[in-house]
């Protein structure tokens, strides 16, 4: 990483810490803010957070590894998560999954070459009555069909 980039990241984290507080309990909101902006929390960022909150880097990593929606590895600009729980499965998740994979040319767990989309499975999104469901970044889409899912994907920048 370039030194300049590091410094701007440090500044950003310092701002977040000032905003959310120096306590351990501020860790999660800080991580969420970084995740939202950068789509992942780099090892440098993790250590800066640890330094500013006066905790240990491994504690930050522990929290990130616990939550499926926090990442320590670079991801695509958008994250698409298809629900794989049983009701969505019964409502036709498989066909949607295949269509998505074909459209993007990647399998679940991978990121497109142009870094546009990372594809993942999620467990129950709480949309069991409206399955199959998926979320794109923060937005939920329900009653998916293969065509509908592909159209949604094509609109993502």
């Amino acid at each position: 990483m370039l030194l300049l980039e590091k410094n701007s990241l440090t500044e950003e984290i310092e701002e977040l810490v000032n905003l959310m507080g120096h306590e351990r309990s501020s860790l999660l909101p800080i991580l969420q803010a970084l995740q939202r902006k950068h789509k992942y929390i780099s090892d440098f960022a993790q250590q800066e957070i640890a330094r500013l909150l006066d905790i240990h880097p491994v504690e930050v990593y522990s929290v990130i590894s616990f939550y499926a929606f926090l990442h320590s590895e670079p991801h695509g600009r958008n994250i698409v998560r298809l629900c794989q729980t049983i009701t969505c499965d019964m409502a036709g998740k498989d066909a949607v999954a295949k269509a998505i994979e074909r459209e993007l040319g990647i399998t679940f767990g991978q990121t497109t070459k142009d870094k546009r989309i990372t594809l993942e499975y999620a467990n129950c999104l709480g949309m069991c009555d409206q399955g199959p469901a998926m979320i794109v970044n923060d937005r939920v889409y329900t009653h998916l069909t293969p065509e509908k899912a592909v159209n949604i994907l094509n609109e993502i920048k």
Partner: protein
Amino acid sequence: MESSKDNLRAPVSQKPHVIEKPKDTSGIGGMITVEINEKKITVPLGTTILEACNDNQIHIPTLCHHSDLCIAGVCRICVVEVEGMRTLQAACAFPITAPLKIKTSTPMVRKARRHILDLMLSEHYGECYSCFRNQNCELQALAKEYGVDEYTFGHVNTPRYEVDRSSASVIRDMNKCILCKRCVRTCIDLQEVGVLEAINRGHETHIGTFLDKPLADVICINCGQCINRCPTSALRANDPSDEIWAAIDDPTKHVVIQTAPSPRAGIGEEFGLEPGHSLTGEMNTALRRIGFDRVFDTNFTADLTIMEEGTELLNRLKKVIVDKDTTVKLPQFTSCSPGWVKFIEHFYPEYLDYLSTAKSPQQMFGAVIKTFYAQETGIDPKDIVSVALMPCSAKKFECNRPEMRDSGFKDVDYGLTTRELAKMIKEAGIYLPEMPKSHFDEPFGDASGAGLIFGATGGVMEAALRTVYELVTGREVPFTNLNIEPCRGFDGIKQASVLLENCKDEYSFLEGVEVKFIVAHGTANAKKVMELLRKGLLSDVHFVEIMACPGGCIGGGGQPIPTSEEIRKKRAEAIYAEDESLTLRKSHENPHVQYIYEKFLTEGPCSHKSHELLHTHYTKRGRFIA
């Protein structure tokens, strides 16, 4: 000296659930009577069920609980029935605040415990007979206690994790881990290093490092405290005994061993003795029977360390007081604990000038053996294999430091721990407590009691004061029987002072100076001292002793398992008793030390030659993990 951060350290869920016990237990509400297994027991309010049972000879199994650590309540093996509660309760995490009825052995309790064990064993890879904790394993002992004779929930047959052998000191085999998190609490709370945490969740949970990097690539100070508290063999030290056997069996090699003060006070425990039995003489004989060619006492170089470090302190004081040299740093910090040295290199690299440049006794001896000893005996240093028996896992890292080759060879070839030596002794068919006693070998002979007490926290300070005070004033330190009590005991941070009066002419600049010193053990306490230094609050302090391990070396990461404050106290008592029984109790009076300054280091302590061989430099490591 508590820092305000103490309250924030552990998440609430990890804090002891103990309710502050009432100071006055005589009044109403001070004591409370519960019924455990139909027996009435009266305890102070806030006592946990586990403590109440322990005090009343009722056995409760535990795994995640450890007397040195905060309560976790994660393993659930200690569950008991509490009348009126829907579910079983963890005895270790349940403070008694009401007159409860508790049952510790009911069908439900036994079944739950057995299931918990079976579930642990279902993911526990490995066999006991190929395991270093065989017969000293808390999981194995419980499996026996609960009569496990089959794997109710199956058993893994293939390892899930690669064994991490990257570190010179600690080997991690997560296939044997039961996720009790004792290591996590040790490293974060006792040591403030924070290497380990639980990574991932659910079935994927394992104890890991930052980004799951190999241990050698993260900031671990090699103290081995996590090993001493692990209930299984998931953590163990890097054992060099095969290499040492090979050297012993090689007739062309001259194998010498130096033995530190703490192993002799602890090794009896490996042979079933109560803690607190010193086996110095017995161990010397056993070492010779195993096949070591010479057995030396590290206390000799502990005495040498005192001469070098004490002289360095006097030099610093002179430079500050007489020469008004502002580049010289005070207080001077001790440098004999390699865990502490690595800690300061990582966390306080800007303060390395405060650290004494004197090597640790182990490394001084290494340098002396392959130079002075080789010269005196006419043995080619390349044929010498130098082993160091240490209570410490960090010593394994220390002897592999690239700068520790001042003799022209690797100064110390292997660091061997107390546990590993006990294993070698057993392998040689020797029952240690029955060995006849014998002395250490010349030309280093028996050392002083000052060197001996290096093993307990405060010992280096006490030894240094005995010498420095006498060098400066010509009189013995003004403490009964040379026992400098303020240095002793197990408070995390101790502080005291000694007034220098009627000094000798050459030390007249110290007339009336009150030498202030601080003693701390466990790097969490070291961190507190360093924060005081950073705030400029130590400007009137002259000398600081720091040991990385709680209790000092007697509680080192290579000492027999288990450990507790009580055990460490007994080991320390053994050392202090042995010191008191010796006639030679001051480092500067050690005739062998005087001899080496006459014959070899002829320009005296802190001279050019001693700087070459007995002093070192440090690396600014910093805390960034690349």
